[in-house]
């Protein structure tokens, strides 16, 4: 054991001396690993970034809100079973809230009805199209995560009376009002005028796909009064304790079955959706990105490993006589094997450290250039890179080290 330790120390010293003696060669060889590690690290960072971005997008939905809807948030193969389901009505909110109030130890807080469709919004000569217009009640604010840039949300009275007021998203305000404040000004939707009482602060995009700021929210009665019923409705239900999401879902399912008066033998004719379920539907996509990315970057690392293997073979060849001498002095096969394995590992570690520093600088640069892109450079990534470097060194160094350890001392000593 002690001898192994001494041999190990000796091997590291030899490896260091060897790299110092062949600086150019070592750097060129390590370059392959550097590129590989940069690729792997950036890929890992990008995947981490996607994850973070995804989580951020998801957070907008609130992880403690259940959505009662006609369709589930996942791919369904038997779409015909869902198509003919009864539409979700905003009226369901009232009986649900009544039942929540009547249930002791309920897991639910409040049910909020919501109806929405896409419309153009005008102010003076400016017009923005494809804006999500949502009608809901004052309690909507409980289920949402947005903040106000200025103004406020509509209150209970405005909500009940269907006042012609609205809260606009950041993008809407920006497009229609430019530098002036939208507060107390009136926007036109389908020819009806609504007074702006609040402006939301920026929420960003959902997975970079669509803006969460292209939205107008108004009291539900106003929405129903002015716009045709051809809108999709759903019920948002806030949960008390998000760790008890499953119990809450069960409870809500029971309530919905009572609202719909479903006999026990009938299946649910509605879906209760939550953010976590959506997350799991997106997992396969994320995973395939990760697999494809890691395959490509793995390939570059593989090329780097071949470079290391090649140079270790050269090193063994060059130092055949030295190997012979060491064997004559009592080096065993294992000693020689260890020596060259450590040499290749040291090269890979050097490449790994340099590659990691490059990747770090690049991440920093990308983060500075595109602040919206969520970049994540973690300690875990550093450890994984180091581990990958060491493994690369061991794998690529094995064949040459093995051949060195098997050299016949007589032949090796005679080698010039």
């Amino acid at each position, binding site marked *: 054991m002690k*001898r192994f330790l*001494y041999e190990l120390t000796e091997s590291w010293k030899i490896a260091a001396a060897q790299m110092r003696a062949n600086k150019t060669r070592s750097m060129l060889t390590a370059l392959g690993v550097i590129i590989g590690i940069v690729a792997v690290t950036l890929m890992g960072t990008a995947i981490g970034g996607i994850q973070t971005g995804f989580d951020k997008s998801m957070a907008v939905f609130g992880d403690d809100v259940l959505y009662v809807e006609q369709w589930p948030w996942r791919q369904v193969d038997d779409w015909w079973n869902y198509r003919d389901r009864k539409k979700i009505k905003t009226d369901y909110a009232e009986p649900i809230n009544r039942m929540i109030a009547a249930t002791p130890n309920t897991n639910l807080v409040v049910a909020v009805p919501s109806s929405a469709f896409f419309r153009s919004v005008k102010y003076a000569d400016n017009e923005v199209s494809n804006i999500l217009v949502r009608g809901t009640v004052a309690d909507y604010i409980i289920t949402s995560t947005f903040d106000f840039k200025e103004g406020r949300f509509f209150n209970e009275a405005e909500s009940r009376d269907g006042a012609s007021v609205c809260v606009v998203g950041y993008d809407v305000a920006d497009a229609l009002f430019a530098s002036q404040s939208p507060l107390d000004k009136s926007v036109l939707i389908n020819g009806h005028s609504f007074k702006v009482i609040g402006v939301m602060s920026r929420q960003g995009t959902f997975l970079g796909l669509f803006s969460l700021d292209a939205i107008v929210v108004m009291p539900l009665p106003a929405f129903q009064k002015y716009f045709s019923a051809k809108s999709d409705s759903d019920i948002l239900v806030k949960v008390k304790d998000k760790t008890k999401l499953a119990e809450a879902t069960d409870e809500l399912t029971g309530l919905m079955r009572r609202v719909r008066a479903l006999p026990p033998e009938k299946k649910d004719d509605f879906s209760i959706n939550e953010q976590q379920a959506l997350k799991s539907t997106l997992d396969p996509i994320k995973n395939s990105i990760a697999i494809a990315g890691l395959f490509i970057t793995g390939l570059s690392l593989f090329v780097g490993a071949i470079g290391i293997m090649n140079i270790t073979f050269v090193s063994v060849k060059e130092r055949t006589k030295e190997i012979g*001498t060491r*064997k004559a002095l009592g080096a065993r096969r294992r*000693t020689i094997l260890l020596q060259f394995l450590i040499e290749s590992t040291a090269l890979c570690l050097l490449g790994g450290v340099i590659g990691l520093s490059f990747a770090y600088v690049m991440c920093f640069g990308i983060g500075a250039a595109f602040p919206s892109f969520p970049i994540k450079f973690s300690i875990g990534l550093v450890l994984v890179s180091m581990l990958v470097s060491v493994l690369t060194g061991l794998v690529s160094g094995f064949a040459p080290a093995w051949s060195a350890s098997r050299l016949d001392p*007589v032949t090796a*000593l005679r080698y010039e």
Partner: protein
Amino acid sequence: MTQSDLRPPGPIVIDIDNITKNYVMGEETVHALRGVSLQIRRNEYLAIMGPSGSGKSTLMNMLGCLDTPSSGHYEFNGKNVAEMNDDELAAIRNREIGFVFQTFNLLPRSDSLRNVELPLIYAGIDPATRTKQAAQALTDVGLGDRIHHKPNELSGGQRQRVAIARALVNNPSIILADEPTGNLDSKTGEEIMALFESLYQQGHTIILVTHEKDIAEHARRTVKLRDGLIESDQVGVGSEARTMALS
């Protein structure tokens, strides 16, 4: 030098009985050793001579446990070497044999001390003892003031002294020197031979492999090889040599 310099030999270190070594070279089999028997005792000073192709190098490789015979018996300090595997042979080489090569075979980028330490590392000696022993061995060969010089900062004679220190450092049973003066001028060669003489006087067992008569004459016993067989085995220094029975 006179017969009185001959020190009394000790117990048998090397006992070779009728060993052969064959190499297959393409279609042909080369019989490098055809049946060699040899006994070497502790505290002998022996020269192995012979022209190239005589089997001299092959015999040296056998004696040095770098190679195993094709047939025959080889005991080193009572241990059967002929059937040892690579790692067991390495252990014997490490503890029992000190090699001195014609081309010195020092590690070019390591200083004298690190070069001499090498066999101790493979023996598993701790760093402090290692440094002490290596420095002592270098002092013993007269290089106490050169322990941090690298081989390219030393003369040929000094390099060979480092190599001899490296051979001595593990206190081996035999020192096996292969043409130790072959790469040195004759004056330096004589200095190296004087060093071997003093090592012999201190009680070391030395085996010289050489084709030079002048060098072989320093030894107390000369074994001459020809065509893979022992041609003669004489005890005595230089002209005073007398033939010994081959049994």
